[in-house]
């Protein structure tokens, strides 16, 4: 320890203080959201390795099996030699009874599963076609990832270009682009998407197109606002004086100044894109079946709920919620870190 000139010796931090300091630093980081998001990304990228079963094929004999921890339901049934259809709920034939209990005799009452027990073979159970819910949830991450990456890249680029043009040129171009934004807000895009899907058929590309139409105005508006501020900066005037082309000024000098904001907007928009994609899938206008998408899985399980089969709808919904929630939390953190001016941004 270095001697202090004033004669005051500062005690080295104790282990507990060090731990507390580390904890204080860690607490500010969005550890949980980042962890959950990386889970989703890993699930999407390595789906074929991670998924325990084929997500698109199932055994009908293994349909509606509950999650592993579920005990199933048993009923007392009378063993009979032959039964008519209306005795199904109360009786069981001898040959079936022998499969469960080799000692069964006619006239006995034995316990029969009316709903099978969960098994470790299907951790989150199976759906109405006997497909493994866990595998489908894992594969579902692929669709969400793919759709959000493509949509962000395309829709974001369109929005940024429009925003740069509107902010830089102003006047008629600005007015026209901003009116486009207003009009977009007034159109029920989900309905338009549904019409497109019905007329042109279900495909991934229609969804991506519609989602791009949906998100570009957000980027355009944000970038336009930034450009309006940046274009009066001295360094922009200097670039102009030294003869830089408009394109060079826009993309080399102004665009980098908007990147912080763009990252924040993009993170928060991904959540919205995932929600919209799953909504379209839920309404039957998403990726064509049997490809597993989270939204269509929720829809698959919807009419099975009344029979107590809750796991088909629940797990994909949880996946959507966890992903979007992590994106929101991570986006909030990014915003506070990169660009606190955006506080009002919702």
């Amino acid at each position, binding site marked *: 320890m270095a001697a202090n000139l004033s004669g005051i010796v500062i005690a080295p931090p104790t282990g507990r203080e060090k731990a507390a300091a580390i904890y204080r630093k860690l607490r500010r980081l969005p550890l949980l959201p980042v962890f959950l998001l990386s889970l989703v990304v890993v699930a999407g990228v390595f789906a074929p390795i991670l998924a325990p079963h084929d997500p698109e094929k199932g055994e009908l004999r293994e349909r509606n099996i509950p999650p592993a921890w579920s005990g199933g339901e048993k009923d007392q049934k009378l063993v009979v030699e032959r039964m008519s259809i209306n005795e199904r709920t109360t009786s069981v034939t001898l040959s079936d009874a022998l499969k469960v209990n080799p000692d069964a005799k006619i006239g006995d009452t034995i316990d029969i599963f009316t709903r099978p027990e969960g098994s470790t073979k299907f951790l989150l159970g199976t759906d109405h076609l006997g497909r493994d819910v866990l595998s489908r949830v894992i594969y579902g991450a692929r669709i969400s990832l793919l759709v959000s990456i493509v949509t962000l890249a395309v829709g974001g680029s369109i929005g940024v270009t429009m925003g740069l043009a509107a902010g830089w040129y102003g006047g008629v171009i600005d007015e026209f682009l901003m009116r486009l934004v207003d009009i977009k807000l007034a159109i029920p895009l989900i309905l338009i998407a549904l019409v497109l899907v019905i*007329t042109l058929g279900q495909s991934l590309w229609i969804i991506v197109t519609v989602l791009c139409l949906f998100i570009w105005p957000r980027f355009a508006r944000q970038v336009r606002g930034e450009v309006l501020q940046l274009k009066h900066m001295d360094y922009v005037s200097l670039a102009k004086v030294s003869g830089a082309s408009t394109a060079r000024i826009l993309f080399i000098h102004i665009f980098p100044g908007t990147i912080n904001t763009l990252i924040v907007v993009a993170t928060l928009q991904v959540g919205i894109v995932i929600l919209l994609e*799953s909504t379209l899938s*839920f309404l039957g206008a998403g990726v064509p079946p049997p490809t597993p998408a989270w*939204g269509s899985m929720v*829809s698959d399980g919807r009419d099975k*709920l009344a029979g107590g089969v809750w796991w088909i709808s*629940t797990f994909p*919904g949880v996946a959507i*919620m966890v992903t979007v929630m992590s994106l929101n939390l991570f986006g909030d953190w990014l915003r506070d870190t990169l660009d606190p001016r955006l*506080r009002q941004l919702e």
Partner: protein
Amino acid sequence: MQKYLVRRFLLAFVTLLSVSLIIFIMSRVSGDPRHIYLDDYSTQEDWDRMGEVLGLDKPYYEQYGMFLKGAVKGDFGESVREARPVVDVVLERAPATLLLGSVAFSFSILVGVPLGILSAVKRGTFMDNFGKFIALIGQSAPPFWLGIMLMFLFAVKLGMVPPYGKQDWNSIILPAVTLGWYYAAANLRLVRSAMLDVLDSEYIKLARAKGVNSRTIILKHAFRNALIPPLTFAGVTLGALVTGSLVVETVFAWPGLGRLAIEALFAFDYPLLQGVVITFTLLYVTAAFVVDVLYAYVDPRIRYA
């Protein structure tokens, strides 16, 4: 103010016009409408006569003109599925959607605004965390899934409310909560951050220094100014509630416009679908117009911008 009103009105008009154009183009791209009206047993003569009646023999711009002329008069043609005027079907379904929308909107205000104030005033306490939790769920859970889960819990398991349809008064609770939750969350966040900003301002500090009691400060001085952001948001909310009704009405089999749109869609009933889309747009544009005008009235800074 007058200039602003005219500008705003023109904008609403342009929006409606562009939506009608989009719908017209889509209806023509989707194929010859005669395929929907006529069946396999109709003759070439029927086909031609139908074309004349619908104006399909004229150039596209004239067809669009006819479409617009009809639309202004409230004539969107006949629904194929129901074999009666589209307007009648739409008007029959509209009240259910308006009811659901207004209950959901009230829910979002009644839950979002007080929770937002409490979260800001009692910042960092249990109340604040509870508010954050409500907001997070609302902004992250997909409404269709939230609806299904609420239905499973409160209707199937607990049997407290009817699972679907529009029967008793209590059948509106689940759809309205599902629809309103997202906006309650948004209002909560908006009011909270606006409240925090206002509470930090000089005039609140002055009021505190003068010894005004904190209830008066919160309700009279801070709250009024914190209402501006949610008011702006209300315009957006009203419009988006319309889209939300598509999903929620489908989940809860609520007999409104949203479900009508989905039904029309899967029955290939284009005239009906056009009518619904135009109605939705009209609702949104009107709501946004009213909110903007109110807003400009409340906040003079907008008028002269």
